[in-house]
């Protein structure tokens, strides 16, 4: 059996965190305000007469023994904001790791597992939606912390494949999930095409963006000097270059510019941004950059 994505001690620490969002979504109770609508829930709201077809589990049998009449217990509905975690599983997530570091793919799975656990602890429903060129089979997890194991199994079973296509992914996402909610996107955002416009579309449709950019050490500061033959992990395209210090600095500057652009896009649309290297431990990431970015 493969190793657990997050260990038990870390899970215990995660229980004091909460997934937060800032937008107020129409039709849903945003933030931490509870609705007063009856429906399936945990908190008692009122009684009403039992009608045929009602769920017998809601009958107040104590009242029946007293009044010999069936009363149905009503609970206040808890319409949570849908939380959708889009996880990049393209081949680019396997490249760029520094020596001794985790790959971005594995790091992203661990980070996703930690976020899912945070949501489950607070009875949020989280949809894990892997994507590369298109959306892949999702996994909906809800019902508390004891439902974490199936979610972890799902994450562990994921394999990297395909190339990133944010346009198709965004279009398919908006089609399948019209209800607005929190969209947590964990990716390296390193596709060859433009990723900013698709992200802008998602934001324009009312989703709150939480962009978590993960990069490997080699993604940002490539090591080595001399003649290097580069190969794109997704497309297989090759490029022969001569790398020197100046070229390396220019490359890093371009990468940082890209990250800065991503951050601006998120903030401009009322969302948030967190970016860090895979060299940063998951625990530090959750309680450091993710907390600073008010993810939790």
């Amino acid at each position: 059996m493969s190793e657990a994505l997050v260990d038990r001690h870390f899970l215990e620490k995660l229980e004091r965190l909460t997934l937060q969002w800032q937008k107020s979504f129409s039709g849903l109770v945003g933030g931490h305000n509870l609705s007063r609508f009856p429906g399936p829930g945990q908190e008692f709201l009122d009684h009403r007469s039992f009608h045929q077809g009602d769920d017998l589990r809601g009958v107040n049998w104590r009242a029946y023994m007293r009044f010999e009449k069936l009363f149905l217990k009503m609970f206040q509905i808890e319409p949570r904001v849908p939380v959708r975690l889009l996880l990049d599983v393209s081949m680019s997530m396997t490249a760029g790791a520094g020596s001794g570091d985790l790959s971005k793919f594995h790091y992203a799975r661990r980070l996703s597992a930690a976020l899912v656990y945070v949501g489950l602890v607070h009875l949020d429903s989280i949809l894990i939606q892997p994507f590369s060129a298109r959306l892949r089979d999702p996994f909906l997890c809800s019902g508390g912390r004891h439902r974490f194991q199936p979610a972890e199994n799902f994450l562990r079973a994921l394999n990297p494949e395909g190339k990133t296509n944010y346009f198709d992914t965004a279009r398919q996402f908006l089609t399948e999930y019209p209800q607005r909610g929190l969209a947590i996107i964990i990716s390296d955002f390193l596709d060859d095409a433009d990723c900013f416009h698709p992200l802008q579309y998602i934001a324009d449709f009312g989703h709150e963006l939480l962009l978590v950019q993960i990069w490997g050490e080699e993604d940002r500061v490539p090591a080595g000097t001399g003649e290097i033959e580069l190969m794109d992990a997704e497309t297989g395209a090759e490029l022969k270059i001569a790398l020197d210090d100046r070229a390396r600095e220019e490359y890093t500057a371009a990468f940082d510019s890209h990250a800065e652009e991503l951050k601006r896009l998120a903030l401009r649309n009322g969302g948030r941004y967190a970016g860090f290297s895979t060299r940063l431990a998951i625990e530090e990431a959750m309680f450091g950059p993710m907390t600073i970015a008010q993810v939790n």
Partner: protein
Amino acid sequence: MFFLNLTAGEFLALLGSLGSLVAALYLLDRARRKKVVSTLRFWTSAVNAEEKQTRKHMRDPWSLILQLVSLCLLLLAIAQLQWGTRERSGHDHILLLDTSAWSGEIDRNTTLLSREKALADAYITRLPARDRVMVVEAGALVTPVTSFTADRAQLHAAVRDARPGWAALDIHQALSYAQQAQAWSGGNPGEIVYVGPGETSSQDDSKQSVANLRVIRVPVDGANVGIVNVAVTRSDAAAGEWRAAVTVKNYGPATRTVRLNTRFGQSVFAPRLLTLGSKQQVVAEYVFDTTGAGQMAASLEPSDALPSDDSVVLALPRNGPLRIAIFTSRQNAWQPLLDADSRISAKFFRPGEYRAKPEADIALLDGFSAPQPPAVPSLWIQPPDIGSPLPVKTLVDNAPITQWNEASVVGAGLRTTEARLSTAEVFHTFEGDVPIASTAQGPVVVARPPVAGRPEMALLGFDPLAPDMKFQVTTPLLFANLLRWLAPETFDVLDFAAARVGATSLVLDKSERAQQLRIRTESGAAVPFSVRNGTLQLFAARPEILSIESPGRQRVLSLTLPDVAENHWQPPTTAASGLPAFVAWRSNSVALWQILAVLGATGLIAEWLFFGRRRKARLIAGARKARSVASKHSDRERELVNQ
């Protein structure tokens, strides 16, 4: 110039393959490294890197050249490159280890062979490791113990296992063999080394020329007095009488007095003091009577350095008259015939006193049939038809003997045809029976050799004491032949001798023929021999007791005395002597491998100093720069995060 360990082809093949490997590693080290990246967008846009064409020129060519040259030098060092004439392998030496009789000489509790072994081991140790040696044991025969081998352990073991021999050294044969072996080996001829005292069987007059001969002489004391031979003969004059002669020789340069002790069985003869001058030989004779078998032993006192020829033992058989038990009712008729020979002792019994096991060597049954066949050899005279060992075919009267079997021992010398038998029984013979004399109707004298545990027997179908036969010349001869056939040991001439191991010669009687000689060892194996001018010649390389049989004569030759060589070999003046120095075979080439190894190692160190270290420094500097850039941008990243 030549390669000691590798041929030129092997060297070039090795250099080519290793050089290719080094060049491949060099090119691999400097080849364009491949790297898988997440995206190429920043490389093409931000870095402004242009795709480079494959560079044709080689970076750091002197590094590769230096590596290849160093590798070549090291390979040449391993190949033990030498400057000089060709010398592909070591030399082939022959080590002749003297294992003659003299090698058993004892001096100060160590044998001469032990001293030879020590010198031989020292010689082997001093040879170069690649030299091959063949160890040969040299005595009367030349016995190679090992093949040409450089395995020192095997050579030392072969020397250690050598044992003193009994024969004298034949140095000429040993040197000839060594020369031939060196010629056959196909290698570079080395030395022929003789280790021993140099005492040989024959006088060396030829001064045999041997190239590369080395003599490591082990001095021998030589003060030896020993028994040369012992000869014992049965006397014809009286039954039971033996004549013995013991020959003693002084091999040493000084006169010596020794005491010769002789005994037969428990009877000790009076000791004789013998004073022998240098190289003098004395014969001590003995005459003694005994009818029993026993051992005759002769020994010399005091013992000397070579003890193996100081004593000798000979086993002698019984020497009594032939005892005949005669069962007859005609004692008076038989008495004159048997009294004629002193070697016969007859005892008469009446037929009623017949016993199957009489106390006699032969039983004679005269005209009666025995209820049980005799357990000793028997002679039947006119046995009755009923109870005869052979069925009586018919009775003939006045019949002449028409045929004598001269091929048999019994019929030898009998060829008269004048004998007429007044009355005779004709026997029916079976397979294995030998007819001796026959009439026209069949055999009347038959000999039956021993078969299946039954002793031999002979049957006369007529009465040799009959008046008409008594005066025939043939009758006593036939009777004598029959007795000789039934008990040959009584009538044969017996000679016993103790002689030296090695080549032995023996003068035969004029009557003896080479075709009739049978020579066997104690185990029954036939011994090869030759007869030249009436002299028997044979050879024994180790102690043997040989039985030499011919008609009417038996000899027992006990070759148990050492063949002590008396001639001192003078090696050629060109021969080296004594142990050689440690490097006896100076090579006429100069070894260059040490220089080459130093040069190769220097080249590799220089390559590392000039190129390897610089390369490493470049890598370290690059890594430092990368870290500084990463640190700088990490700060910027933190700044972004804080914003």
